[in-house]
């Protein structure tokens, strides 16, 4: 259907927009999978897939949303092949985020990242899209191929989980590497991936 041949200037536009969005793809991927090297592999895979599928991109629509769908699907596929384990990136700057009055230890950006990685993947991605990427609930729902209400509830659950971790200062060290937790994550991934093709058109 969309077999119309793109003009050279349309191709150039696509290339420019794709280039502009790469830093955002890296940020989203880093939040999803934690390890910078794996995140960057994922982004490169995404760029190649986006380039190959460029005829399906509707000019004038959001390149960031379009490529996030591709990245997300690549991530889910790789996760199920067990390539990522949500490992924590030790190199996140030890930047102080907040210093709650009642607590002796301030909260660092690295704590935040670690806490984020302990969330189930579908809640993590929802929170990343809305809370970090600045997408509306509607946009996030379209990226994840689910209902707006589902995104709202995922973001809500993610927020309250982070809230209690941050407030209690009780941030799990590496629960994602725990075999049981990992199995649970993979099961949830199956649910997330079920029925979520690349199409965000419904």
């Amino acid at each position, binding site marked *: 259907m969309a077999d119309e041949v793109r003009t050279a200037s349309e191709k150039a536009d696509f290339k420019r927009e794709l280039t502009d969005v790469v830093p955002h793809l890296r940020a989203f991927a880093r939040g999803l999978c934690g390890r910078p090297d794996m995140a960057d592999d994922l*982004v490169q895979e995404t760029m190649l897939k986006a380039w190959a599928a460029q005829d399906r991109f509707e000019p004038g629509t959001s390149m960031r949303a379009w490529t996030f769908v591709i990245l997300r699907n690549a991530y889910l596929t790789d996760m199920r092949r067990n390539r990522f384990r949500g490992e924590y990136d030790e190199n996140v700057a030890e930047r102080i985020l907040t210093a709650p009055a009642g607590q002796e230890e301030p909260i660092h950006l690295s704590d935040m990242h670690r806490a984020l990685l302990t969330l189930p993947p579908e809640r993590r991605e929802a929170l990343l899209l809305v809370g970090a990427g600045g997408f509306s609930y509607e946009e996030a729902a379209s990226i994840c191929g689910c209902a707006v209400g589902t995104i709202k509830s995922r973001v809500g659950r993610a927020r309250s989980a982070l809230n209690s971790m941050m407030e209690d200062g009780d941030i799990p060290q590496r629960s994602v590497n725990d075999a049981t937790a990992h199995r649970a994550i993979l099961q949830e991934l199956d649910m997330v991936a079920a029925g979520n093709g690349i199409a965000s058109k419904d």
Partner: protein
Amino acid sequence: MTSDKNKKSEKGSESKKMTGEQQRPEWANGLRQLYDSVVEEPLPDSFKDLLAKLDKKS
């Protein structure tokens, strides 16, 4: 001392106003910071190489 008290009550009413729209925990902007810190990183050469190669494909 007295000025401290005044400040506190000012703050109190301000935060009351805020709660309607922005009832965000303190860590909430950390998510943005995490994201933005990656967005602002200089792009590694491998990405520039890949972008340069794309034109030759198809």
